[in-house]
């Protein structure tokens, strides 16, 4: 930069390492470029490929990589491909772990992984393409509470199946739960998954990374269980905590652990300071009570398993349905009353 005669404008003060130069060369940059060349100059450009798959469009992007919709030109099958650049060592580890964890998992509410491979741009994971939206977006359309709880039960069942295999998800949150066009929940992102020491998964898949150690903190602020945040040993009940925190937010429109600063949020989690349920939300108290128990500050205060949590939620739903039904002399299916969840606060 030739024009820095003014010392207060030293380029040093601006981080120089911003990763902007390589943007056009990235997979994303190349894909947009080929699209533009075809639009501007009318030449049909082949879309970039990963393995045998031809990239269609981007589905999403996060700190850990990009997810594309792609097709297999041989079979015409549509898939989702997550690509993690090679230079993101931590993300690569996560993707490998995700592939290992999911290879053993077959469940209708868990996204199936088909293939893992390497390409010039990094490591990729080929998964089912889920047509739908995230739980957060789905809930924003205004959902009756029984609908939300029913969806939560599907996720609880999926997590229970993972736990049976000795796999803990560790990053359950609204963004990691998709709702497909049939209204089925699909759990994604097992990138932080960890096998329980000595479990079948531990033996089978040789997760050798340091993540089996305590003292390493991973997860997402706001949904992370206290023992996870504190870097203590983490068991299946951290998924129970995170699922309950997720359902709490979706049902009541407030975050269960809130505060003006990150410190305050972390402190609320660790001390078990759960937000009050807003008065105007008509969700049975028994549902709120089950979620509170699932968010117990220590694992001992929570339900013994995902099954027990599911059982408590189911009972709460049934009690509500039959109670109203008998009161009006009708069966629960004819109860047309809607309970709207408030819009999530952002």
């Amino acid at each position, binding site marked *: 930069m030739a024009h820095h005669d003014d010392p207060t404008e030293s380029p040093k003060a601006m981080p*120089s390492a911003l*990763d902007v130069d390589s*943007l056009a060369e990235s997979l994303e940059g190349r894909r947009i470029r080929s699209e533009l060349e075809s*639009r501007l100059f*009318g030449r049909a450009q082949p879309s970039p490929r990963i393995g045998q798959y031809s990239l269609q469009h981007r589905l999403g992007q996060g700190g850990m990589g990009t997810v594309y919709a792609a097709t297999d030109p041989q079979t015409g099958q549509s898939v989702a491909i997550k690509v993690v650049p090679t230079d993101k060592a931590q993300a690569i580890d996560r993707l490998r772990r995700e592939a290992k964890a999911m290879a053993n998992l077959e469940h209708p509410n868990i996204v199936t992984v088909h293939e893992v491979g390497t390409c010039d741009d990094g490591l990729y994971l080929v998964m089912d393409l889920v047509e739908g939206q995230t739980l957060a977006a789905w809930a924003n359309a205004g959902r009756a509470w029984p609908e939300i709880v029913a969806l939560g039960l599907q996720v609880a069942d999926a997590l229970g199946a993972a736990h049976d295999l000795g796999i803990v998800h560790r990053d359950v949150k609204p963004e990691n739960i998709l709702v497909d066009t049939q209204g089925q929940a699909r759990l994604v992102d097992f990138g932080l998954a960890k096998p329980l020491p000595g479990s079948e998964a531990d033996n089978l898949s040789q997760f050798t990374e340091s993540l089996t150690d305590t003292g390493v903190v991973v997860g997402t*602020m706001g949904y*992370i269980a206290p023992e996870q945040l504190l870097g203590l040993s983490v068991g299946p009940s951290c998924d129970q905590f995170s699922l309950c925190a997720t359902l709490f937010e979706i049902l009541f429109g407030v975050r269960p652990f809130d505060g003006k600063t*990150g*410190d305050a949020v972390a*402190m609320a989690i660790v001390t078990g300071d759960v937000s009050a349920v807003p008065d105007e939300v008509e969700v049975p108290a028994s549902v709120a009570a089950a979620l509170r128990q699932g968010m117990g500050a220590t694992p001992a205060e929570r339900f013994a398993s995902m099954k027990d949590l599911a059982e408590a939620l189911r009972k709460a739903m049934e009690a509500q349905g039959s109670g109203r039904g008998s009161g009006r002399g009708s069966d629960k299916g004819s109860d047309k009353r809607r309970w709207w969840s408030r819009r999530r606060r952002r």
Partner: protein
Amino acid sequence: MRSDLDLLEAWRANDQSAGEELFARYYPLLLRFFANKVPVEPTDLIQETMLACVDGQHRLRETEKFRAFLFSIAYNKLRDFYRRAQVGEEPVDMASHASADLAPGPSTMMGRDEQQQLMLRALRRIPVEYQVLLELFYWEDATSAEISVLMDVPHSTIRTRIRRARQLLEEALAESANDPRVLERTRTDLDGWAAKIRSAHQVSAAL
């Protein structure tokens, strides 16, 4: 190497290969110009900018460099985009609104690491005018003369504005460092939090 203006003239006279060459030269710049300012894929915006460049409605002043000319069109396309995003609102004031407010949503560009992600987010939270100023000045090595042309402000004002922009950026960075909503979207160093909380928790547990 043919000059930018040569290529532009040839493209205007229907020479497609000249257009392709010009596009190849400036695609990386346009991509990074738009990528950190809109929450959508910038494909349409880049296309509109290139087409506006060739359709000849915008006159290139004799002394003007092609790059400044291109950025001034891109800047206008960005303004149009924000206007469309805010249906029924007043003309967009880029001097007082941040791109994160005008077009909320995650940016399409991700930094290599968390530090960069925080920086990119902070840039999105200062007024667009300042964001553009800083990015052009530091990333594109644009001269203050070029920037003054494309933003249509006097040359002398630019330096003051860069200083002000830097100040705002530093404030935005400081704020985001302790904002739970930012933390949540960035995979921050939770270890740091854990250490903090652990020491605090020992105190509260003793109470």
